[in-house]
């Protein structure tokens, strides 16, 4: 039973991280029907930014929790700037090009960012300091659920609630929903669609950066390649849930997290990816639009 609980909580943690990243994929897709393949790299850059800030601040002797707050804020800011700039450089000029062009541009951006970090940093794994202290009240269950994991799950829950409120009730949130449903009409009611797209990239990048910092803190190391793996998994989660759907991304991420966790725990860790992608194939066969996705209705 305790083993089951451990796997359940482990899956929840994984799922939360996937959800933070998957939201960026799904929101961008919802607005401009583009798979932003460079999104995983934004997550990786978030983790590296936090590492750099954490290293400097710990030399200055700051307490861990303060370092965590500042490093996270810096990661969110840097990643947002990257996300915003990527959209302006790699996607805006191709807004009216055939659909394949921005996709290729996205893959190019992803490779460029990976190699840029590889050259600027190193190909080795770098140790990431533990910034979130082990809470005393977590002591009794820390062998199956650590404080770092609790931070991941809690942060994700809070972020989801804030995002839901933002999309549902703020003007920008309404503009996002309108733009996702009908871009031409969004223009004709006076929505600044370019701004909506920029804000979408900034929000997606911020969430990915948050995920990057939290996971780096939990695992204790980073390298230039972490964005690629996490990106593919989160993308899988987004497709599983129905790309373009926000609740779908969260649901897909949780299902993926639990599938991986239980498959690893009860069968073999060698098969983690086989189960993840096998699940995706099954869903795509039986529900091509994903669990909560809307099947392509023809637009008039």
């Amino acid at each position, binding site marked *: 039973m305790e083993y089951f609980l451990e796997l359940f909580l482990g899956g929840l943690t994984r799922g939360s991280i996937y959800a933070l990243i998957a939201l960026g994929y799904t929101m961008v897709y919802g607005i401009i029907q583009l798979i932003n393949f460079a999104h995983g790299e934004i997550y990786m850059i978030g983790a590296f930014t936090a590492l750099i800030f954490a290293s400097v601040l710990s030399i200055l002797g700051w307490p861990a929790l303060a370092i965590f707050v500042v490093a996270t804020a810096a990661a969110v800011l840097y990643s947002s700037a990257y996300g915003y700039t990527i959209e302006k450089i790699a996607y805006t000029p191709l807004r009216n090009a055939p659909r394949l062009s921005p996709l290729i541009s996205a893959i190019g951006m992803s490779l460029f960012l990976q190699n840029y970090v590889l050259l600027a940093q190193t190909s080795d794994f770098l140790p990431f300091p533990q910034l979130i202290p082990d809470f005393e009240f977590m002591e009794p269950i820390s062998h199956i659920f650590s404080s770092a994991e609790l931070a991941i799950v809690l942060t994700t829950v809070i972020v989801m609630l804030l995002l839901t409120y933002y999309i549902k009730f703020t*003007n920008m949130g309404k503009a996002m929903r309108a733009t996702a449903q*009908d871009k031409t009409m969004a223009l004709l009611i*006076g929505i600044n669609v370019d701004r909506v797209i920029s804000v979408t990239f900034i929000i997606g990048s911020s969430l990915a950066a948050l995920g990057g910092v939290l996971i780096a803190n939990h695992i204790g190391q980073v390298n230039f390649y972490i964005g690629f793996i996490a990106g593919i998994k989160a993308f899988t989660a987004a497709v599983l849930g129905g790309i373009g759907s926000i609740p779908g991304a969260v649901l897909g991420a949780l299902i993926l997290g639990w599938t991986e966790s239980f498959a690893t725990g009860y069968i073999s860790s060698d098969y983690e990816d086989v189960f993840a992608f096998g699940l995706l194939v099954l869903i795509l066969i039986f529900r091509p639009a994903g669990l909560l996705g809307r099947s392509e209705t023809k637009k008039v």
Partner: protein
Amino acid sequence: MLEIKNMNTYYGNIQALHDINISVKQGEIITLIGANGAGKTTTLMSMSNVVTPKQGEITFLGEQLLTKKPDDIVKMGLIHVPEGRHIFPYLSVMENLDLGAFLRNDKAGIKKDLDHVFELFPRLHERRNQQGGTLSGGEQQMLAISRALMAQPKLLLLDEPSLGLAPIIVRQIFDIIKRINKENGTTIFLVEQNANLALKVADRGYVMENGHITLEDTADNLLANEDVKKAYLGI
């Protein structure tokens, strides 16, 4: 109020509009008629700057539109109900109407205009919590016009409001268009393939063929014009 001068609009290398000249005076109902593919929709999209003309000038209330973004044009009161209605399918009737007032902040004024459109189209009030995509074609057209009214139009562009609707609904919608013009003093630019209907409500009209304006006259003269009769009125 609106002056289009020597406007040329292209899709890629293909020229869709040739040397268009149109003028609209405050308070008028103007119609633009023409066959499918003539360039009517492109003319409206050029005014809203969703498609940017390559050459020419568009002046609205004394200001140049070509350098303005679509949202600035909406802010000026040039409101466009596009062909095909473009209702947000997964938003409720209320949310669609609310988005019509996207650029407004005057809560009281918005409430007043909401009451006004519900009075014009009581059916929308009955369906206010229904998703836009589940409405019938006629209801969607009512919603599209109402959503535009929520933006307080000074000039209302209507692209084929009769398209695909039953005659009784079309009559109802055209009555409302006349009312909007009379009671609110809103200037109306009406694009139609249904020339007979359009010329009956309009003050003046333009005829478009293959991207060119070929005729321009009062609606009564156009209704009596032999060429127009043959080509567009099926007489």
